[in-house]
Structures are given as C-alpha cells and as structure tokens.
C-alpha cells in the first residue's frame, strides 16, 4: 500500500479541532449533490444559491469575528444582520445552525433522497459541531446561526429568482422573428421555450442593475460565406471535424450539464473545496472565498442572461445545419437558451477574477471535480488558465461561436472587478 505524504496523513487531534471546517465542508459537499439532483437547479439558479449560502456562512462568522467585515450595506439590499448577544458562542455550532437551516430552505423542493440526505447530514454534523460544547453554548450558537440564515433568506426572497416553475422553462414564450435569433435546438418538449428568459432582471449583488458589464453586439447575422458570421460558424464546424482526443476531453470536462453534474458554478465551488481540503484552509477564509465566489458567479449569470436575451442569437447547431451541413452533430448537447455570450465563459471569468485576487495568478491546483463520473482530474497552473479552458471547451463542444467565449470571459472579468470592490476584512 502506498504511504500518504506526511502532509496528507490523518491528524485526529487536528481534525477534532477543525469542527467548524468539517461542518462547512460536509454541508458544501452535500450541497454539490443537491444542486445536481434537484430539478430546478439549472446553472443560474445554482449560482444564486451558492451566493446566498456563501454569504450565510460568511455573515454567521462575521457577527462574531472582528476581523471580518459584514457585507451589510455593501451588497444590494442587505441590511444589518442579527447581532450576537454577549454570552459565549461556538463557531462550529453557529455555522451548523446557519447552514442546516439555509440549505433546508434552499432545497425544500428536492426529492425524497435529498430530504433523507439532509436529515442524515443534520444529525451527523450536529454531533460534530456540538462535541465538547456546553449545551447552553450550543443552543445559543445554533439559534444565532438560524437567525442569520433567516435574515438572509428574507432578503433573498425579493431578488426575482426565488421561485422557479417548470424547471425554469416558461409556459408561454414568443420566439423573436428573424433568421439570426434563437430557436429550439432539441425535441425535448419543455425545452421548446428558452430557460429563464427573465433571469437578467434579477437583483444583483455588486454589479449595477443597468450598464454594468455589457458586451459588444453579437456579430451581424449573415449566411454569406464571406461574412464574419459565417467564418465563426465555419470555425465551429471545422474544429468539430478534427477534434483531438485532448479537445474532446476538455469539452467533456467542462460540460457540467445540469442534473448530471454540480453545474458550471458548482464546478468552481468544487475546485475551491478541494483546495480548502488540500491546504487546510481556516474556516473564516473558506466562508469569505465562498461568499465572494458565489456572488461572482451569480452576478455573472444575471449579467450573462441580460446579454443573452438582448441579442437572442441562434446556436451553432441551428446555423450550421441551415447553412453548412444539415447532418452536423456537435459533440455536446446544445443548452436550451440563446447563444451570446457563453454562460460558462462569463461565470468562469468572474470566478477566476475573484479567486486570483485571493490567491494570485500562479496558484496551481488539480481539479478532480468529475472523478466520480469517470473523468480524470486535470491540472491547472492558475485560475485564469482554468477559466480559459472552460471557455474554449464550448467551442470544442460545438455549442458556442468563438466570440461568445472570448467576450464572455471578458464580461466575467468585468463582473469580478465589481465583486472585488466589496470589503470582507475589517
């Protein structure tokens, strides 16, 4: 049997001291599964929950950690959160109260297996959190965590994204007329209307409601072989015909399909959970990063959706079958909403921008997010490299034109700059 490097060997005493980290880490591990297995959790919806849950974890600690600065008064609509009373609190129990309450609320609609899992996790982590803690301290701490969670839930209810019907597909929708606009790309009945067409109207955390991180217009539609639009489509087509094994691996690695993965924002959260484990990151830093990352991907999706439905561009599969090759099949399934820009690119650009601010540009890591699905881990020299690979993966997958990936990444960087104006340290 191979021997673990000393740094990775079990350290029981150390583990016992890290009760709060266990609470945060285990709830987030379950969170990734709940995202995957709850039918309403398309990527924008998942990003929203990552934002609120990250803020919940952060604020629960900020109320008792002078070094942390609350986001109240900084992000849109968040007012002062419940203060702790003067009696002692336990951070693990505060987190346990906050996260068990918040996750149960976000996933009240998950199936029977998810409900069963949340109950099992609540029981398991209550034991972890309360180990060695006096009952009065534990009760007080759990109650405070719940109070913080409830306040954030109350705030979240008015952002426009709290209620999801029909898995996010509107019951009624009128397609935009014109050859350059989005039309359904598959024969799944509910997907004959685009996903979440009003998501771009949701309240954001840090970017302005209008004029924040807009995009240059999509290329003008044309079927002329000499046009720039045709050239982009031909690029998608040509690459699809000559994909290398490595390019196929990249496409599938970042495919991050809803209901079959933790989604694109969950992929970034997964990366961070792996890094937290690897580096034994303190819980206050974990919560701080998860809050900022969550807001970045959430605002990323809102802004991206504003652009998607502003330009309402058709997908490569529609154009290529119409103009170039009627039998063309892309490697990946085409998502059921307009093309420009690439959502994965926007939110990956936003995620990488925020994470680089915490860790620097050359922070190497290995990403094993999809190992359970039989997809091998991939190493990255830094967050920007990962984001760029996520963006190019959409070209390899045949679901985006090059401009959507390039401009999506740029849009994401813009969003990150707004998020980074928030102060999380006193």
């Amino acid at each position, binding site marked *: 049997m191979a021997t673990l490097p000393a740094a990775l060997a079990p350290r029981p005493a150390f583990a016992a001291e890290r009760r709060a980290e266990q609470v945060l880490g285990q709830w987030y*591990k379950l969170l990734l599964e709940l995202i995957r297995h709850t039918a309403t959790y398309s990527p924008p919806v998942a990003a929203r929950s990552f934002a609120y849950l990250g803020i919940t974890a952060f604020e629960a600690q900020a109320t008792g950690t002078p070094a942390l600065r609350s986001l109240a008064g900084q992000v849109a609509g968040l007012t002062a959160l419940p203060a702790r009373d003067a009696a002692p609190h336990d951070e693990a129990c505060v987190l346990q109260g906050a996260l068990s309450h918040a996750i149960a609320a976000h996933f009240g609609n998950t199936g*029977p*297996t998810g409900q069963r899992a949340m109950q*099992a996790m609540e029981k398991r982590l209550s034991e972890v959190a309360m180990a060695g803690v006096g009952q009065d301290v534990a009760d007080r701490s759990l109650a405070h965590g719940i109070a913080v969670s409830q306040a954030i839930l109350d705030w979240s209810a008015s952002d426009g994204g709290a209620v999801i019907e029909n898995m996010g597909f509107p019951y009624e929708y009128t397609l935009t007329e014109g050859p350059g606009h989005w039309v359904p790309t598959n024969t799944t*009945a*509910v997907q004959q209307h685009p996903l979440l067409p009003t998501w771009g109207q949701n309240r954001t955390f840090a970017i302005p409601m209008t004029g924040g991180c807009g995009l240059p217009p999509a290329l003008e539609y044309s079927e002329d072989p000499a046009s720039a639009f045709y050239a982009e489509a031909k690029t998608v087509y040509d690459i699809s015909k000559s994909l290398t094994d490595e390019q196929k691996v990249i496409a599938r690695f970042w495919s991050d399909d809803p209901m079959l993965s933790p989604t694109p924002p969950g992929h970034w959260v997964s990366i961070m959970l792996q890094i937290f484990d690897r580096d034994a990151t303190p819980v206050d830093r974990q919560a701080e990063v998860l809050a900022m990352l969550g807001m970045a991907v959430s605002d990323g999706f809102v802004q991206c959706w504003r652009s998607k439905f502003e330009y309402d561009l058709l997908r490569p599969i529609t154009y290529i079958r119409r103009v170039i090759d009627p039998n063309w099949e892309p490697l990946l399934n085409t998502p059921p909403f307009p093309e420009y820009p690439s959502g994965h690119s926007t939110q990956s650009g936003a995620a990488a921008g925020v994470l680089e601010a915490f860790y620097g540009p050359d922070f190497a890591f290995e990403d094993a997010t999809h190992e359970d699905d039989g997809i091998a881990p991939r190493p990255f020299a830094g967050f920007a490299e990962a984001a760029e690979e996520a963006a190019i993966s959409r070209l390899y997958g045949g679901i985006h034109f090059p401009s959507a990936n390039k401009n999506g990444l740029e849009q994401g960087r813009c969003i990150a700059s707004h998020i980074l104006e928030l102060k999380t340290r006193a």
Partner: protein
Amino acid sequence: MRKVLPLLLLASPALADEPVTPQFAKETTGLATPYMGDWQYMVGGGAAVFDCDADARPDVFIAGGEGPAGLYRNLSEPGGTLKFAPVEGVSETGVTGAYPLDIDSDGVTDLAVLRVGENHLMRGLGDCRFENANAAWGFDGGDAWSTAFAATWETGAAWPTLAVGNYIDRKEEAFPWGSCTDNWLHRPADKGFAPPLPLKPSFCALSMLFTDWANNGTRDLRVSNDREYYKGGQEQLWHMEAEPRLWTDKEGWKRLRIWGMGIAARDLDANGFNEYFLTSMADNKLQVLVPPKDQTLPQYADQAFKRGATAHRPFTGGDLRPSTAWHAQFEDVNNDGLADVFVVKGNVSKMPDFAQKDPNNLMLQRADGTFLEVAETAGALSFANGRGGAVADFNADGKLDLLVVNRREAPEIWRNVSEGLGGFVSVRLSQAGANRDAIGAWVELRSEAGLQRREITVGGGHMSGQLVSWHFGIGTADSAEVRVIWPDGQASDWVAAQPGEAITLKR
C-alpha cells in the same frame, strides 16, 4: 388559471381519420393491494399478469412494497365485469415487482419476485400455489434493492438466463448518489442457476429487456437507468456473449442519460425493428432505429416530439408541472391494427417541482404513426399515484383492459366496454422442451390492414410483466394469417385466423 397551448398540436396531422376512442369503465374488482412503504419503495410497484390456475383467464400478482403482496384469482366471466378473489398462502413482503415465466419448463408458470432484500423464484405448483425454489434451483437471491428484471433463453440452454437490475445501496444515507449496486446475470448451471455474474458497470436500473433489436436472432440486454443516482452512467445495451460486454460509442451506441424508468418495445411499423418507448421525468422517448446506410447499429432517433408522444406533463387536471412516468406498454386497445401506448404516472413522493395530479396516458396510434391522447375521453382518467401496470384482456372478450398499481392506494382497473371495435386474434405459443412459451420469438400477423410484428419478451415495463395470449387487433379485416418465428429462427407456416379466434401455435 394559465392556459397553455398543447405542444401536441405541433405534431397533429389532419384530424379526418382519427382513431376510434375505446371506452373504459372503472370497476371495483376485489384487487386491494396498495404499494406501501417509504423511501425504499419510492420506485417499484409492479404487477405480474398470468394464468396461475389454467382456466385461460389471466390472474394477477401485485407488489405490496412494505405491505404484503397480493395474488388474485381471476373470476371474471367472458365479456362480464371483472372480478378477482385473493389467493391465500402467498405471503411475500418487501416486493417491488414480479415477472411470470416458466423457469423450469414444466408447463406451469413460475414467478420471479423482486424484493428489497432477497429475491425469490417462486415455482408454480398449479392452482395458484407456489413454493420458494431458490434453494432447489441454486438461485442466489442476494440482498439488494432489486428494481428490474428480464429473462431469455440463450442458445441451446435448457434454463433461462435471468437479469436482475439493482438500485441504490440502501444503507447509504447522506451520500446515496453514485452508490448504484451491481446488476446480476443469473445464468443456467445444471438444473438451476450458477452464482450471479455482476454486470459492471451498473447504473441503477429501473427496467431491463432482452431484445432482438437488430432483428438478427440475437437478443441483447437493454437496460434503462435512473440518472438521479448514477455517476458516469447512461442507458446501456449489453452484448450477450460468454462475457457480456457493453455496446460502445465506437460501435454506434449513442449516449443517452435520462431518468430511465420503463421500457416498452414494439415494431410499430413492421419494418423488422422494434421501436422503444422509454419513460422518464418531464420527457419520454420514442426511439426509432436510424442506423447508418447498409449497417445495423444501435443508433436511435427520438421521435416522441415529432409523433406527439412526449406525455411530458399532465394533459388535463390543471397541474402544469412536469410528469413522472413509470410503466409503459404498447398494445392495441381499440383493435384497429395499430399498437397504442399506455403510460402509468405518479409523483415520486411529494416532489413539488413535478405534477401531483399526474394522470396516466393512453395514446392511440394514428395511421400516420402519430399519437392521440384519449385517457380522459376514453373514461380511463386517474390522478392516483401510479407505478406499475398492465394492459391485458382480463375477461376474454377480445378487448384489452387496463390495470394500474398505485403507491399507497388500491390498484385501479378499467374494463374495456367499447362497442363496435374492430376484430382481434389472440395467439399463444407453445413448444416442447425448454422455453415452453417461446420467449424470444416473433409473432407476425398479416391481414388487409397490413403486417404486424411483436417480439415475445419477459422484462421491461416498470417491474411489471405478463405471460398471456398475445393480442392483435385486426380492424375490419374478415380474416388474417399468423405465424411465429421461433426463438431459434425457424419460421412456422402462415396459419389462417378468423376474427375473434384464439390460436395456439405449437411445435
């Protein structure tokens, strides 16, 4: 209340030649077994339909989940109301589903009983009596959450090969996802079965079917898997070789990932290749083989949308949320010579994103291959929480009735009371030696309405199986001919059949 334009309109042809809508009457028949239990019984709830007392009337075994299963003797008079009486002495619990077949080829139908816990092979003793034959047949029933079953007789085998699909590791609480347990292949050995061969990888099967999809006399194992629980999984097709192996993408298999819950198969256009209806959540698939030119590869196009058979949300009742579909079965319920499809539906368990009032679908096939939903106008509307089911002629009147097993509610049954339907022919197969019911055969019927073909299988549906006389509607034809292509490929002569005739093809 919002009004939604039905998407089916997109697929509707001209309405001039709509199929005849059959009429059903819900009856109180004595069937009283609800499918009970909580988490471990959120799937399952099957019914086995077969004649256990040799009176040519199909009897019924119903899974009871955590409660007792029920065996019911069919007391219905020909053409009369449907009546069943419970049979004492079968005290199976933990049952998720069951499939009838003559395992030991003694001419008495046995029962494969799927359970949470050890599966049981119940040897038929006649007169609806059974005994557990696990030990006698060397059958290792295991200890799993079994949720799918199929059987075939491999070439030259005296005993069947049984495939058992298993679901989640039921001991996993916080992280059950990705814990799919191995499916098993029980192959013959001496007078019984060898130790089960695990079919790796396994992806939480909810339906399995040995099927001659390529129409070449080879029966591969098709497995429909629940994507809710697998990781890295997909729908599967196994080459049934000495060492079973999966069809791969390099062999043309196209990855499909759905909440696979049930398989129905029928060669709808008699072109030699089965179509497959796959049930799921919010979407169902009607797969049509579209192989590359001059090749027979397992490549399918989904035509459910094109043919109006998506059944993706309730068609009535005001609940617009997506549907949850379980059992599916092709049968000709209006005897017009075209197979229709019955789909049983019900919410998994108070899942708020999916319809709570989720009616079963009865979709009639039109002459152009599209489908017309008629459950409500046919009098078979139900908002109960369905799981398994059966379409069968319980009162020998040549008109197919509907049975549904419900979660936490009594089964429902609808008698086909239609007047003036087209004619029918029923066909039973019998051969000497092993595989007496000729599982794996194809039965063909030709009449002025054209050719019909159906593969005789044990498996598919949602944990529900049948061993009955095989039904063919023949419309207004005043005569027909039938033949069988036996499992070994030998074709019988065509045999004349009159409307209403029950034919047994023997060898």
